């Protein structure tokens, strides 16, 4: 399966080519759209293949696991790859509509492709150290994007982002070293096989908790989320949509992969810690959102409260709750990115996203209003939209597990989400203050709205076709948690003769 390398190789090659096209913005944009569309096609193909045939392995340089480096893609990875490509494509297309060719920074699209390469490597790697490399590639590109177009005032928010993620990366490196000292290997399948031979060993639990801290920081879980809500709103809209849709979810994916596939399933302490941290994340995230008065700030805080839901589902750690987590990721990435893009259209029309300076939009852009309302209600979790099904599954699992405090916390967070979404709706769409006008003569907003509408359609499809989407999520959770099959397939894939 050489196709497994394509999601990493395609954006890397596209980015390198784009670096040469400093002046030809049209060529750069065409290349970016083509690369993302290609990734989407490959990822969907991989998804179809893994749905029927299980995990796929590519031993790089034909050296088999556990000695060589392997790329492994199962259905969960394929879903994440497809979502990354989809959000990337939407952000790039939206960016083309938003900015005139001459005003686009020549490094923005190449850096987005490097970011995608890092994200895709994290999704498709089969060992801990390449996960580290993928994370660092992703983070370094995001540092660059964060400061590339920032003004003198906004650039200071890059410092906490950089500092906290540097600490996270270094702790991750320590965790890699300790895992190697403990198991003598870094390959996921080999670690899983050897960890099974150390039942109830305290060192495995400590390693699990260290990895939990690392990925909780990347995902923005409760005590470690300070870097997120101040830095994301300073990004240009399409880049912010990409970051908010995808980057924290790489942390969630790593948690799912590590606790589902790699580490033994009896680390109850780690799972409970995750669940309680998630409960706190949901509440604090949504309270932070209520305190904000500009759209991007509100949405950035809501990322945290939504991350809480996904981590909560991982924390319950039943097969159904893992499936619920995956379903929630699918729903959340699309909805969150499209809401950020909606916010971008509001900025285009009103010239600001401060809720005191917005208004009139329901009269001049009713379609945008409908899209925003649908996505916002989906975020809050109203039936029959996609967010409702994700939350319903998580609440069912919570009640089954008897964690009533956490279930109540999640319901309170949902209601407060609805409240702050209605705040945006009332201020930007419903209010008609006399001193504010909407720049409808600006021709950019119609194609921008069309790009958001495409995302809203996908999201509505997930909501209405929830049964099909959940079946896919369930199969992905089954594959991700099936350690025996994973170990057999990965360690059974031979490289060249005698390489094993």
């Amino acid at each position: 399966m050489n196709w497994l390398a394509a999601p990493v190789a395609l954006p890397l090659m596209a980015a390198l080519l784009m670096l040469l096209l400093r002046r030809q913005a049209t060529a750069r944009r065409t290349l970016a759209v083509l690369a993302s569309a290609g990734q989407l096609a490959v990822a969907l193909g991989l998804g179809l293949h893994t749905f029927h045939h299980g995990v796929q392995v590519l031993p790089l340089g034909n050296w088999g696991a556990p000695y060589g480096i392997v790329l492994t893609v199962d259905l969960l990875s394929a879903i994440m790859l497809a979502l990354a490509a989809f959000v990337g494509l939407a952000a790039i297309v939206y960016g083309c509509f938003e900015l005139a060719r001459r005003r686009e920074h020549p490094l923005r699209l190449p850096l987005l492709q490097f970011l995608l390469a890092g994200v895709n490597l994290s999704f498709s790697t089969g060992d801990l150290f390449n996960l580290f490399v993928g994370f660092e590639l992703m983070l370094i590109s995001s540092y660059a994007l964060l400061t590339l177009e920032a003004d003198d005032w906004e650039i200071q928010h890059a410092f906490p982002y950089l500092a906290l993620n540097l600490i996270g990366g270094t702790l991750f490196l320590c965790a890699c070293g300790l895992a190697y000292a403990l198991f003598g290997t870094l390959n996921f399948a080999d670690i899983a096989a050897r960890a099974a031979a150390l039942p109830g060993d305290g060192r495995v639990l400590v390693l699990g908790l260290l990895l939990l801290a690392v990925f909780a920081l990347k995902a923005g879980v409760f005590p470690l989320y300070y870097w997120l809500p101040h830095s994301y709103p300073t990004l240009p809209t399409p880049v912010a949509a990409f970051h908010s849709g995808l980057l924290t979810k790489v942390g969630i994916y790593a948690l799912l992969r590590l606790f589902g596939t790699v580490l033994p399933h009896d680390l109850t302490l780690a799972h409970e810690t995750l669940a309680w941290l998630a409960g706190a994340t949901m509440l604090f995230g949504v309270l932070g959102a209520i305190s904000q008065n500009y759209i991007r700030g509100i949405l950035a805080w809501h990322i945290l409260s939504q991350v809480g839901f996904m981590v909560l589902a991982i924390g319950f750690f039943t097969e159904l709750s893992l499936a619920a987590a995956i379903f929630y990721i699918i729903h959340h990435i699309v909805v969150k990115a499209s809401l950020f893009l909606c916010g971008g259209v509001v900025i285009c029309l009103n010239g600001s996203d401060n809720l005191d300076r917005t208004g009139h939009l329901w009269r001049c852009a009713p379609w945008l209003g409908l899209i925003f309302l649908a996505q916002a209600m989906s975020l809050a979790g109203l039936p029959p939209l996609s967010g409702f099904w994700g939350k319903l599954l998580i609440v069912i699992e919570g009640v089954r597990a008897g964690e009533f405090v956490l279930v109540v916390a999640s319901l309170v967070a949902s209601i407060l989400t609805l409240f702050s979404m209605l705040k945006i709706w009332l201020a930007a769409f419903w209010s008609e203050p006399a001193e504010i006008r909407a720049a409808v003569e600006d021709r950019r907003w119609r194609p921008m709205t069309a790009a958001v509408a495409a995302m809203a359609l996908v999201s509505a499809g997930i909501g209405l076709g929830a049964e099909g989407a959940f079946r896919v999520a369930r199969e992905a959770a089954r594959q991700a948690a099936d350690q025996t099959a994973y170990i057999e397939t990965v360690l059974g894939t031979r490289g060249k003769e005698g390489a094993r």
Partner: protein
Amino acid sequence: MVADTAIMVGVLFACSVFLILQRSVVRILFGFVLFTNAANLLLLGVSGPPEGRLPPVVDGSGAPAVDPLPQALILTAIVIGFGVISYLVVLLYRLFLDHGTTSAGELFDPERKEKP
């Protein structure tokens, strides 16, 4: 030898955490430099002493050698760490130019008003 390295790693981590918690961004910077190097040293400690180990590719002499893989990891980590630290230096210099202060406390003072 492993115990010595472990103590050294502990001391380095303690010093770097102390430095990172200071207010001056220059001290924070030095704290991060120490922090990444402490992690590298930890990885080096994973190799263990060379006694009683054989090199993965035997050259005939049969002299003991340490496990080379952690050192390969360190090389990668040094490159990544160097890149990020140099980026941090430039960022902090830019912040100093923009705001005229090297105190993290002043830089992130909530009392300062938003965008002037």
